[in-house]
């Protein structure tokens, strides 16, 4: 059935535009590959870098396999604790993608609800919500995320900081992330609610909540989809930056940003592979997401068709 759905989609207008764009096809292929390898990390990674029984200190700082002292199975070398870099990257990618997707999901849910409420109800609700949105936008988002993250960690007892690190990150990114969704949904809701189908639903006695959810919401989602794709790239970057600055994931369960932070400490001792490979993976993911988002924006823009 899934196969049939995919085949149908490939035959649609959007599918045709997708097939005509080698950049979009390549980006999606890279993303699927990266996501699959990250999800299956426990199965396909040569070792579990956080299981002490599988890590050997005498295998420390082995360079990548194509260099003179390279050693099987450490394709991309090992770090000073003897952890396999490729395995760390696979596990780290899982963490980065997980936090990125969760942050987008949370900010999208909050933003769409607020946008619907503001656009549909209008009046003082609209005024209040949009004033809050303006205020959020008048402080640099990176600064907000760092502060929220730092304060949340300071307030939590030390034992809870590591288990909740990912939750704190998602919250601190979503706190500013919802505004964009709220604005786009509000704008289209204000147009949609005046249209005849919405008026008709109201006349036959459908409740406001149901009109919002079942009638207006589906008609506002196209720009949300584009924003969500582009924001996934931003969220992954934000998480990496916070982790690099030391207010994100701890070194016991590192994301790609935390891996780069660790590698950065060995920058001058010639162990370049600790930094370069996680950075390349991070760049590759965000680049693919952005290219896909750009394509989606053009494909869904009726003015360009």
């Amino acid at each position, binding site marked *: 059935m899934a196969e049939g759905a995919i085949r149908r989609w490939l035959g649609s207008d959007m599918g045709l535009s997708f097939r005509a764009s080698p950049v979009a096809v390549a980006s999606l292929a890279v993303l699927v590959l990266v996501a699959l390898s990250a999800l299956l990390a426990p199965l396909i990674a040569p070792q579990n870098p956080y299981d002490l029984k599988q890590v050997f200190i005498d295998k420390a700082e082995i360079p990548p396999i194509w260099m003179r002292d390279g050693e099987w199975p450490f394709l991309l070398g090992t770090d000073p604790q003897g952890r396999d870099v490729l395995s760390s990257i696979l596990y780290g990618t899982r963490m980065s993608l997980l936090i990125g997707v969760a942050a987008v999901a949370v900010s999208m849910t909050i933003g769409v609800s607020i946008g619907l409420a503001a656009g549909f109800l209008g009046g003082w609700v609209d005024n209040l919500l949009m004033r809050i949105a303006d205020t959020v936008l008048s*402080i*640099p988002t*990176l600064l907000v995320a*760092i502060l929220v993250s730092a304060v949340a960690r*300071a307030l939590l007892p030390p034992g809870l900081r590591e288990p909740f690190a990912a939750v704190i990150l998602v919250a601190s990114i979503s706190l500013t992330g919802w505004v964009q969704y709220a604005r786009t949904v509000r704008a289209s809701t204000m147009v949609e609610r005046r249209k005849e189908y919405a008026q008709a639903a109201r006349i036959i006695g459908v409740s406001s909540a149901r009109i919002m959810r079942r009638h207006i919401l589906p008609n506002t989602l196209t720009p949300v989809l584009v924003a969500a794709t582009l924001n996934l790239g931003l969220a992954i970057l934000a998480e*990496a*930056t916070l982790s690099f600055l030391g207010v994100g994931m701890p070194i016991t369960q590192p994301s790609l940003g935390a891996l780069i932070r660790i590698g950065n400490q060995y920058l001058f001792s010639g162990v370049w592979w600790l930094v*370069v490979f996680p950075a390349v993976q991070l760049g590759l993911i965000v680049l693919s997401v952005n290219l896909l988002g750009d394509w989606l924006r053009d494909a869904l823009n009726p003015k360009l068709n």
Partner: protein
Amino acid sequence: MLAFLIRRLLNAAGVMLTVAFLAFMIFRFVGDPVELMLNEQATQAQRDELRVRLGLDRSFPLQYLSFVTNAARGEFGISYRNQQDVIVLIAERLPATLELVLVATVLSLAIGIPLGVYTAIARNSWGAQLLQFGSVLGVSLPSFAVGILLILVFSVTLGWLPAFGRGEVVQIGWWSTGLLTPSGRMALVLPGITLSLFQITLVMRLVRAEMLETLRTDFIRFARARGLRARSVSFRHALRNCLMPVITVTGLQIGNLIAFALVTETVFQWPGMGLLFVQAVTFVDIPVMAAYLMLVSFVFVALNTLVDLAYAVVDPRLRQDSVKHG
């Protein structure tokens, strides 16, 4: 016009009061300031005395009020970590950050504008396509990773440029500058490039979009018909019409650059206020965090307000609109 001016200023003041409230909440409720400032052996009398001196015995609204008035005078208290006046600490670090931001801005204009013009004029050429792709790459690569890779290539491997610090600085009054010494200028190269990378792509895309629009207008066609040289048409006639939005965006972005400089400063151990802030975050040095938040937000809000007011002066429609709604 006056109504618009007042409304816009009130708006800005409201945002700053909200930011001040957030900073105050952090200051007041993350850890007990008294416990953080005194050592373990302090007596109860000493604690009470400090509590009164900090004004923590007063009511909540009064405390907020005095926080705001102190902040407006630039008094943010004593750093928990260095036991120094916060505003003195920040003033010491301010020149380093502003110099970095200045270099990044100049670089972004000097590189971004020509690239934008080129990608617009030769939009289907191989080079322009490559640059367009490169601009997506510039947005996708995290700036800290770019900085680290630059250090790896130009400092660790080639040994051409310093990897950290400001080099030698010259003191001019209270301002310290690295622009006047060779080592100071060398030290600015890598951080400057790292910070400006995103900005270069932004300027390039903006100039390209504006140029594509301008190149279609009649006066450009007429200039071509007059037989002017292509270079003169693109740079002297078309580009000039595109510079207004570029100037606006560059101005607005300065706030963002100051905020983002904290990442670059961490990578290059650049002794600016961003690094001060990141270190303060690690040590939960609340007064420094609160002061930095207030300062950067102030720059942000001030720039936004100025740009809005400038637009209202230039474009009468905005004033009309404000009268109707206000």
